[in-house]
């Protein structure tokens, strides 16, 4: 089972040219509780190939959202950038197995 199978939506977007932010909308409170318990920050850091201390995590019970922010692996629009808006980064987390 993947995260995408459980939650309402996973989305990502640039937060300025140097950061990308990924929001996991869990929907039901029990999904949020399960994910906050089982989703390990280190695993998400490995998925995006960043050091765990570079990955900011916010568990937001009121919204039943888990939010991750990380420095963009490449700066937006630089020669090596492949995704100007950063919206495809979400696919990795959505497809991550639990």
């Amino acid at each position, binding site marked *: 089972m993947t995260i995408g199978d459980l939650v309402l939506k996973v989305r990502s977007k640039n937060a300025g040219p140097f*950061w990308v*932010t990924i929001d996991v909308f869990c929907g039901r409170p029990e999904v949020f509780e399960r994910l906050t318990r089982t989703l390990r920050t280190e695993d998400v850091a490995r998925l995006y190939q960043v050091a765990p201390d570079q990955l900011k995590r916010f568990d937001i019970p009121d919204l039943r959202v888990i939010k991750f922010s990380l420095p963009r692996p490449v700066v937006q629009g630089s020669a090596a950038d492949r995704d100007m808006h950063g919206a495809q*980064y979400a696919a990795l987390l959505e497809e991550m197995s639990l």
Partner: protein
Amino acid sequence: MPTRVLVPSGVLGLGFDREALARGVAARPDIICIDGGSTDSGPFSLGAGQSKYSRAATKSEWRALMLARAEAGVPLVIGTAGTCGTDSTVDWMYDITAELARELGQELRVARLYSSQPAARVAEAAAADRVTPLPPSPELRLEDLTNIVALAGAEQIQAALETGADIVIAGRTTDTATIAALPLSRGDAAGGAWHGAKIGECGALCSTNPTSGVILVDFDQTGFTVEPLATGARCTPHSVSAHMLYENSDPFRLFEPGGYLDVTGATYTALDDRRVRVEGSVWVPGRYTVKLEGARIAGYQTTILAILRDAHYAANAQAWVDRLTGFLHREIETRMGLARADYMLEFRLIGVDAALGALENRTGSPVEVGVLGIITARTQAEASEIGKLINPFVLHYPLTDDEDLPTFAFPYSPATTDRGALYEFALNHVMVLDDPMSAFRIEVSEIRTEVPA
């Protein structure tokens, strides 16, 4: 004093519901505010000092807003005019405004707020230890930047409004500054002003009908109330509070010139099925800093696109590209005398990992693979020449020596496309200001309708 702000949409050029706008004007707002840009589509706009939206789309929407302003009799403010908010795009927006004023027979006072920064000013501030990097920060190198802008806050917008302008065309501002300015100067709650501005800055994105555009934000002494104006659009505590997540690396704090907004203690209450009341947001004053943005030319590009439909090549696309790349580097060195450090040549496999590159962890068997070759060189002539040199090999190069020459699909002729300059974002810094206006300037113009001779 309560302040009613009408926000027609998240950005000028994206469209809005004209009926909802009419409802907004009928609701007697105190000001109409719209954003004109963002860094979201990349460094080109800032680097080149050009709008990314078409002049025609901008003019058609601005016309509707200028008519709305005339009817409402209140100021109309655009922030980050022309996508990037350089002086050049402020003047571009002013030209459109002057043209429309003549067409509509409007007499106007227009204030232009300029945000472009001379490199010398930033260098001087840096030498005085008044430029601070934000993580992750590129090295501070100012000499080759094509444009630098500072993000204005509420104070500069207030100064522009104090000129008595009917229309304020602002260069780069924070997303929130135009909306927060008037409520703050009228003494509404600072936490509510900034929070309401953040919720409102993308228009109806904080509602259940994001594309409808138009919203109304009412500010007062204790917070704000937000209401979408399109038929059927609703704001709910969830749709409003979730907007703090959007394009924000920290959902609880938002840094602005002169402090930050903290929404940790904010409460969101449904007043009815379409309006949400928000209270409890806190403004924490700090040092007066403005964020800087800058861009430079990082090379010139030529691209080439080939499609591998042959099943054997589609299945072995990476091996093909690896072999081809090694061969081409040798050819470029032999024929053009260029070393590897003089240029970049990269092939991205569309259908394999073009969007995510090294992060991609899914594999599959694509029907076909697009091979996007990107050449980055020191001049356009050099990039173009490399493109022409590699063109026949991208078309015909074999996977092994002992097979017939293949021929792949080129979608157009010529197969190469010159892309022009590649710009890169070069600043992620803030600059300290003692006087908020010291890095900005305002120019006021009176537009008079011409009397026919």
